């Protein structure tokens, strides 16, 4: 009997033990880090992974809502939480505390040297590494600007390392960013062609360097870096049509230094739909404020306070043309109709579903909605393929001017740089002169106004508020919209009621808000992270 029992067990063993071992499974649809890194294609794919999501058009478009340029009416989107002074570690509102791109770049940089030289020559490898180093530096520049001190991770970490890492001083992060940018610039090409257009260029590295230098009051360095960009081998120049800079058919134009590249369907952007007025099926998530509208000069080159011809009840007449190119306002002729957020029957009426709470919508990238309706650049505004600009040449010119002013090196080049921007063919604002703006103080006021007008809706205003320390003025009190009244549907004529502005919200600002709170969940996981003061 014993014998039979043994036979039976043996039979079972045979039955279950045949074929390959079912325990030796391995991933069926994913590559392994062990087998990657053998070819140029491998390296290219990994670098593309670093580019994927490196920056989002959403940030560029939405970020003005954390400034006095705009307001986001939907509390769940988080922007107003920060802008109104309610941000707390548990609920920071907006969150830029992300290392995803940084760790992708670290992974690429930690591994790319495994690819044999026979498969990837050193020149190309160096360029590719420089691209990844740029993307990493870009992220650190934002992190340090928003949070101050942040952990500095330059290699892939283990979970234990990630959960015990401490914050490095902001100066160390900034120094690292600037050194990196200086170091990689020479190995990056000035331009690309064909399907490489959109990769990081030498100009992008220097432009970011100039921006970081300006943001960190390194004016001498900023001046030098900016000057490099104004001369050969670079050939950046202003695109003549201000509104056209942002139209998708003009992607990668001569003014663009750095942008996020999109492609409809496969790598599409949706954020333009969120910006659009209700009557065109949009959400009006980002609404320009009266404060922004008021910041534009009159056609005479004066502020509305200075210009006696300014009529508060016809506030959009005779203004800097950049206002009409940036803000969809009551009575503006837009897409064949006069925009009307004031009349009771209008679907854009302030207060209506998805209508702007201020009576204004942003217009950049949306000069003509048809650019995206079943064209090469989109199926509609929710699925677009045009690039979203991160750095353009006008910012460099204005940054140069500002650095010179702050360094008190006021010379003709300052006025020249500002006037280049003000007098681009479609803008044609009166030139600024030493007569009108003779000294540092007056120029400082001018350059800040000019910067706001030129770059509104491009996600830079918060950084300006932060470094100019004007939060207390810019981010407190009522957030006002347009005056109430009516729009004549056939002529676009406005009838407005004095002092009747819509109020879209109320903000308070505290000095602690110059830095954002480190999200509490990060501190909950990593007890070594200390919170920013005041939170």
């Amino acid at each position, binding site marked *: *009997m014993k014998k*039979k029992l043994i036979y039976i*067990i043996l039979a*079972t063993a045979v*039955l*279950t*033990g045949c074929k390959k071992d*079912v*325990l030796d499974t391995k*991933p069926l*649809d994913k*590559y*392994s*880090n062990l087998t*990657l890194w053998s070819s140029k294609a491998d390296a*290219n*794919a*990994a*670098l*593309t*992974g*670093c*580019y*994927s*999501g490196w920056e989002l058009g959403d940030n560029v478009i939405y970020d003005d809502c954390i400034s006095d340029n705009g307001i986001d009416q939907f509390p769940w989107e988080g922007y107003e*939480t920060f802008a109104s*002074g*309610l941000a*707390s570690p*548990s*609920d920071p509102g907006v969150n830029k505390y992300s*290392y*995803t791109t*940084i*760790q*992708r770049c670290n992974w690429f940089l930690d591994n790319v040297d495994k690819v044999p030289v026979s498969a990837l020559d050193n020149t190309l490898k160096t360029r590719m590494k420089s691209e990844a180093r740029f993307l990493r530096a870009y992220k650190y520049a934002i992190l340090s600007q928003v949070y101050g001190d942040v952990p500095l991770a330059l290699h*892939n*970490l283990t979970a234990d390392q*990630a*959960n015990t*890492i401490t914050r490095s001083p902001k100066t160390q992060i900034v120094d690292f960013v600037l050194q990196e940018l200086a170091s990689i610039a020479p190995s990056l090409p000035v331009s690309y062609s064909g399907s490489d257009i*959109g*990769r990081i260029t030498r100009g992008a590295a220097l432009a970011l360097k100039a921006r970081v230098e300006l943001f960190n009051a390194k004016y001498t360095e900023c001046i030098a870096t900016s000057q490099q960009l104004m001369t050969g081998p670079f050939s950046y120049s202003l695109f003549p049509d201000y509104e056209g800079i942002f139209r998708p058919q003009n992607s990668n134009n001569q003014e663009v230094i750095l942008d996020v*590249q999109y*492609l409809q369907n496969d*790598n599409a952007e949706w954020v333009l739909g969120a910006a659009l007025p209700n*009557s*065109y*099926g949009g959400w009006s998530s980002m609404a320009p404020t009266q404060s922004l509208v008021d910041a534009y000069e009159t056609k005479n080159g004066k502020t509305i306070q200075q210009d006696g011809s300014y009529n508060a009840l016809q506030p959009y007449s005779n203004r800097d043309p950049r206002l009409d190119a940036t803000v969809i306002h009551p009575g503006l002729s837009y897409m064949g109709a006069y925009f009307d957020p004031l009349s009771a029957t209008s679907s854009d009426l302030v207060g209506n*579903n998805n209508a702007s709470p201020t009576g204004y919508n942003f217009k950049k990238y949306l000069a003509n909605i048809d650019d995206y309706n079943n064209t*090469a650049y989109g199926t509609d505004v929710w699925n677009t*393929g045009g690039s979203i600009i991160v750095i353009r040449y006008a910012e460099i010119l204005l940054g140069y001017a500002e650095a010179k002013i702050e360094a008190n090196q006021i010379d003709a080049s300052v006025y020249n740089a500002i006037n280049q921007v003000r007098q681009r063919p479609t803008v044609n604002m009166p030139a600024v002169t030493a007569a009108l703006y003779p000294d540092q103080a007056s120029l400082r006021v001018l350059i800040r106004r000019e910067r706001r007008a030129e770059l509104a809706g491009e996600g830079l205003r918060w950084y300006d508020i932060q470094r100019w320390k004007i939060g207390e003025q810019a981010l407190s009190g009522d957030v006002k919209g347009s005056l109430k009244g009516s729009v004549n549907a056939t002529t676009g004529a406005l009838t407005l009621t004095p002092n009747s502005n819509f109020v*879209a*919200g*109320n903000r*308070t600002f505290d000095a602690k808000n110059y830095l954002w709170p480190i999200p509490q969940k990060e501190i909950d*996981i990593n*007890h070594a*992270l200390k919170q920013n003061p005041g*939170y």
Partner: protein
Amino acid sequence: MNQKLQTLTRRIAKLGIVAMLSAVSLGTWAINRIQDIRTVKVSISFNGETLEKAFGRLSEVSKMPFNYNHNELRKISTKQLAFKNEPLPQVLNAILNGTQFQYKEGESGVIIFKTEEKHDQRTNSTVSAADPITIKGIVSDNAGPIPGVSVMVKGTGKGTLTAGDGSFSIRAEKGEVLVFSTLGYKTKEITVDNQTTINVLLEASVNSLEDVVVVGYGQQKKINLTGAVGTISSKDIDNRPVTNLTNAIQGKVAGVNITTSTGQPGRDAGTIRIRGIGTGLGSGGASAAPIVIIDGVPGAMGDVNPNDIENISVLKDAASSAIYGARASNGVILITTKKGKEGGVQLKYDMYAGPQQIMKQPDFLPSWQQALLYNEARANEGASLRWSDTDIQLFKDGSDQTGAHPNTDWISLIFSETGWQQNHNVNISGGDQKSKYLVSLGYFDQNGNVKETRYQKYNALFNVNSQLTPKLGLSAKLGFLYAPFSEPVSTYATSFGQIIRGANRISNTVPARWENGALGYVSDGSPLAWLESPSFNKWQNYTINGNVAGDWSPLQGLHFKPSFGYRLALGQQQQYVSDIQYYKGGAAGTPLTPTKLESPNNLTNATDRTTYTLLQGVADYEKNIGKHNFKVLIGASQEYSIYNYFSAQRQNFLNNELTQINAAPALGQSTSGYANDWGLKSVFGRLNYNFNEKYLLEANFRFDGSSRFAKGHRWGKFPAVSAGWIISKEDFFAGALNAVNSLKLRASWGKLGNQQIANNYAYFESITGGQTYSFNQTLVTGLTPGDGANPLLQWEKTQSIGVGIDATFLDNKLDVSLDYFEKKTSNPLLRTQAGAVLGTSGTTSFVPPYVNVDGEMVNKGIEVSAGYKNNAGEFTYNINGNFSFTKNEVTKLTGGKVINDNTFYDVGTPFYSLYGYEALGIYKTQAAVTETAVLNNKVAAGDIQYKDQNNDGKIDAQDKVYLGNYYPKIAYGLSFSSGWKNFELSLFFQGAAAVKAMGGNLIGRVGPDVEKPTSVFLDRWTPTNTDASFPRLWYSYKQNDPTGTPSSFWVKDASYLRLKNVTFAYTLPKNVVNRLGLNKVKVYYSGQNLLTFTSFYKWIDPELGSAGSINNYPQVLVNTLGLNVTF
């Protein structure tokens, strides 16, 4: 393998010793169906007659059945003896003293046996000298004949089964005992005298310990169970309109907790937790779900037609489930389907049909109040008012002719259907002594309360058992399920849930339809537009289950059972999303000017396929030596499963008419596909030993190797031992037997494992593809680090101990079981909590690796179940109840508190407890605010005051505390069923208690078009209502918001008691039925989820508790009429 076998053998030996030692210190109770012989007292005298005659008379006097070999006992004479009112054992001892014979108590009376013999009652079929006679009869119960009842001649191998009409015919000798038994009835024994007709009335058994219980890889008499096993019979499920098997077992077994989060047809399966949360929750950790084994093959609850179920066993403790070691740490559910029975062809038809309705709906305020409250919130926050007084008046009186000021009841518009459901089942079975078959065909059709929501099931089951030769048996099963599912989908964020969410969130102030016919909409679109559009999501699911098993018995008591199981689950999806053009609304006649366009239309075709194979061999051997009864089982199995998915999508169809891929352009098309697999190898065994059916011992072991772990960490060892002591069989207990009819003590210890993590390849550092970017309008595909790897990953371990008592009282009418358990999970498998620095933020980010957390969690609990059965004349009734109390606590956690949004866990708290601020009330005045710590600078009178726990002058994350436990500590079920003549009534209640819930999703919100508040907001703080129960209104402020600022203010008791089912049935009189040529006809009403008692928000199903959301498709209330016909 050889080495493994050696280890295995050593292991059995070791376990045996441990188990025997445990048996000495621990024990069990049992019930004896036959009266205990020690309670029998007799007065009798003997005068040298043969033992045969002596026992004959003794049997008459004592009214106890005796089993003995007539031939042998005829040769021996008794001494002269006289007894007056003496206990039977003493009488027997006196008679047998000096003979070769001894007595023992058998299942069915006293057995006299020769001592030198290795007595095996069942093999002891000595030929009798008496002439056999043929006995005929009919076996029935109160309701009519019972087919398939086993009729055995006791002590012989002879037997038969009753036919379809309950009749049997068997040859037996005078003096032999006929044993009538079948599942669900008390076994009855009748001694053959001279009668040739024996009609037997069987009594239904309640919780009978004679019952056989299905356990891992076999069966066990309930009386001999040493582990904690809960059982559910087909009776508990029959005639209830349950759409999913999980709902059918809710509340039926102590310690089994089930929550159902949605009533959507096809998606209403509940979540099952046995004896608490044993491991990580959701995708973050190893699965906490029990393993479901259907006829020996792992499967899914949803695959089984509730009508096909013979019985369900729930293995709750390590002792009973260790034989499934690898995947048993959260319990095992064993489902046995119905099999054919010997007898004529039997045909049964069952059906029910009826409407269903949504159980609970939020009581959102009317539009004018929604508008008023939003204005108030705006005012509180210093923003312009949204609505004028005129607007509010128009909402109130509904006089606006344009449709701009409606009071839209979105919920009624979306939940607009009656929702019929019906179920039909045909069951044909039969067989002879050698082969038995069962064919079951089922059809289930459920239409939901939202248009186009539907789920159908076409079930077919074939079960065949055949005894090919006396030594070789074969059984085969083929199950087939075709289940088409359909639901409408939204165009925005394509899903069905989005439609329900829309209905529950869009304000009543938004018109559903303007007077000019244009649909009203919000930023996401309109749920009504989505519902009216041709969009749909359809799945055709096919599941085939098959298994073939042999049973070769080369020797008496030895069985070798190889088996092969296969499961193929195939799904085909077709999802069409139409584009939707919205228009500008206005008064009647206003031209339809296009506004918002939701596009593009698109079609997705997807298939998924899971195949699962099981190869298994089991050998068992049973041997009785005197009073020592042994059973040994040894087996090995191998499982392998692979999952495949493929989908293709195209968009921009010219219109919404065609819904095939080729009708759309290739531009913008996309595809995706993936696969994953896993394997498991196992060796297992079990030893059962009992002495005289009084001392019970069981030892189990299992080794499992899982493909989810790297070599060297793969194999887990899972041992368990348990013991039982039937105290009531001890001599010293005799005096107590009148009060306590039976008493059994059980104890168990065991170790189990868990490897069921979502990532099948957690030890590989994987790279994720498909990370795209485009350069100059050219798409490039990239790679990024995917899942973090942990090559050291190994089994999560659960050690559990348990003790239990089973007792019966009041003439066996009351039976009670009591269990205590402690389950300790150590080194739980969880995804590492990792900060953003690791690259974990964002949607396509790096996923941190799984780890075996250096921590421990304990679930402790008590389970009580009791049943009482009695009758008063023709009125019969029984009451069954079960109750469980489970306390979960994290006992060790290296690295400290783990916070996950509004829940956390730490040493000393339950796993994932509610987390937030302690609310102290509402600031009545501005003066009260000053000098208190506040959350932000907008806090003012009317806001909730929070406690500054650390007195640092501010309210921040440091002030958050434990706010309660959202997993119910107490769960219970209570059923009452009764019969009177042809009527039956049963009620079933189920409930949970000691559970807290907190949720921002439960009360609605004040806001513009996409928010609406419920009635709780009405008693809000205002300067004139400072004693309000609710804080001042907010929209963008966070200080009172239950989601943004969770606090004890929002924590509520989510206990409930629910009348889960009422069934009222009438069985047509036999003469009427027989005239129709039928055997039995029963008509009934059955209602499901009829009443709920709770102090929770009255519009939310309290069963959901913290997991609840106003945005869920609620559970449904079902009323049905049904019919059972036996032909």
